[in-house]
């Protein structure tokens, strides 16, 4: 019986690692720009689908590169052509535009690849057994990739000028500008980073399960739950939040119907917003 729960936790950690990637990207955007980009989820989906397309004629490992590059362009495009001009207008305009954009991107996906599930088509293999727990190679890959990117982020934030500018900008945008930090460069890097993380996460999810057009939206809401859990703008909080969501979802299924698995994150969003909008780990404001 203990095996059963332990296995659920293991699955949760794997899922959580990917959610952490999404959450970190989302929280960076929120920290610097202070708005919720509903179309962020579509970067997740497009990253995965573009990889599918390129893997049709490139080996998978190589296919990832142009796919991620295009995903980053997509992210930058969102900012440059749509959000930048709307930032001066009212809040609601921005929000409606981002919802509209996400709907547009999601349906473009459906148009090109159909509404059905598609798969990268990897072979099924028996998982490896460690002390009564089963872990598949894919799951190990997911955790390794997530750790790699997060380590990269850590080094960026703490050991480079760019990283320090990012942290300053997220803390207080106006002050950062006064101090001479190039907000354009900061803004660009934030979009690149978050799009990259989203795309990578999407690819990992695609490897683990399948691809479907709504994968962006569902994961966006989970990422948002993780962001809230960790405190909006708090990068390490987002990481922990992602792990928590992953574990909570998977463990939760032991107690109620698997149909409600996604509802765990929704319920968490509502509960957190109502009772602890600053998150479990910190204050709003600042990339810490």
């Amino acid at each position, binding site marked *: *019986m203990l095996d*059963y729960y332990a*296995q*659920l936790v293991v*699955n949760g950690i794997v899922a959580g690692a990917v959610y952490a990637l999404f959450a970190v990207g989302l929280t960076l955007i929120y920290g610097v720009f202070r708005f919720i980009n509903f179309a962020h989820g579509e970067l997740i989906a497009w990253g995965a689908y573009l990889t599918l397309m390129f893997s049709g004629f490139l080996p998978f490992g190589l296919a990832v590169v142009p796919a991620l590059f295009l995903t980053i362009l997509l992210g930058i495009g969102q900012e440059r052509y749509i959000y930048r001009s709307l930032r001066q207008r009212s809040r609601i305009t921005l929000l409606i535009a981002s919802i509209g954009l996400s709907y547009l991107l999601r349906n473009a996906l459906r148009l090109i690849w159909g*509404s*059905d*599930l598609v798969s990268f088509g990897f*072979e*099924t*293999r*028996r*998982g490896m*057994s460690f002390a009564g727990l*089963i872990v*598949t190679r894919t799951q190990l890959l997911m955790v390794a990739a997530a750790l790699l990117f997060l380590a990269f982020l850590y080094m960026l934030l703490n050991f480079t000028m760019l990283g320090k500018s990012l942290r300053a900008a997220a803390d207080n945008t106006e002050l950062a500008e006064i101090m001479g930090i190039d907000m354009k460069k900061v803004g660009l890097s934030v979009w690149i980073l978050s799009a990259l993380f989203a795309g990578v996460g999407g690819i990992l999810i695609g490897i*683990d*399960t*399948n*691809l*479907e057009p709504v*994968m962006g939206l569902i994961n966006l809401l989970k990422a948002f739950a993780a962001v809230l859990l960790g405190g909006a703008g708090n990068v390490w909080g987002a990481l922990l939040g992602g792990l928590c969501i992953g574990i909570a979802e*998977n463990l939760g*299924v032991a107690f109620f*119907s*698997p*149909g409600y*698995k996604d509802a765990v994150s929704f319920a968490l969003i509502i509960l957190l917003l109502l009772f602890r909008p600053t998150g479990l780990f910190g204050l709003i404001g600042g990339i810490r």
Partner: protein
Amino acid sequence: MRKAFGCIAGICLLFSVAGAYAAEEVAVGSITPLSGKLAVYGEGFQQSMLLALEEVNAAGGINGKPMKILYEDNNSTAKDSVSAIQKLITVHKLPVLFGPAASSNFLAVCPIAQENKTVLIGAESAAAEITKCGDYVFRVFPSDELQGKGAAELTVSLGYKEVVLTYINNDWGVGLGKVFKENFLKAGGKIIDEFSHDEGKTDYRSEVLRIKKHSLKAAVNLTYIKEGATMLKQAYETGLKVQWLMGSASKSPKLVELAGESAEGIIGTYPTFSQDTPQYKHFKETWEKKYPGKKIPIFGEYNYDMVHLTAKALKVAKSLSSDDIRNALIEVGKGYMGVTGDKTFDANGDVGAVYGKWTVKGGAIQDYKP
């Protein structure tokens, strides 16, 4: 505001013109999944219907007039099936309709057909609930009442007295699951755990783990093709070794293709019909001539029978009103031997069936011989 009224007036004009079609044909409607998750089957249905339609028209049509099938896409959803049937009834005013595939979609539209006294025929819908749809509703595909019994018998005969039961969360799965459970319990079996799983998910690991938790020898999994393939693959990954017992909706080369090695050894039930009859041989020949190289699609034979049976009814019907067509259908059904067997309708518009067993061996679907 004036702008809007102008638009509306213009569109209204457009609609009043729509709906006119050649009066020299006899048209029936068909709600078919041309897009959406069942689109891959929808193509097969259309091809089979076309095969039969051409034969009907080559033999003189309906008393000299050509027969025509008007297709409405239901996007594989119940909601669009409802819009489609509304359109076919209100705009085209057709007295006979071929119902949508997937029991849930069929059940959504059958009250509408019944209310409007439109004859509705189904060729793919197995849910037991459909029996209660009403006297204007027929189907050439057998009800799962029979399959549930067959599945329970199979499980008991294989020696499995305790199983985990899971079924897909829609009318087909829930209905079949219920009938299986009734019959299995009656035969002295025990269901240790029972739960449904949602359609169209990418991740069934939670469900798979729940099955694994019980460490039983057999699991009854009544599900569709994609869902089944995903579950089988993920079960394989987690090292779950169990005898899978599945239903007719899983019996497809596509499932074996998607699931690969993890599909080996499945045993299941399905409604059979003899492939030695002259009707079947004729169907196979004609199919191969018209669509060389293409495999006969799932439910293809049923769609073929449905069109031929309907054409026959239209020929003998006293008029093209739905009541007359309905009575004619019952008449011509008596003892009609189609490709899929005897199509006599019972009082509820259902047909009978014989159930056989299938298994997956060496990557191919075969009949199961114990």
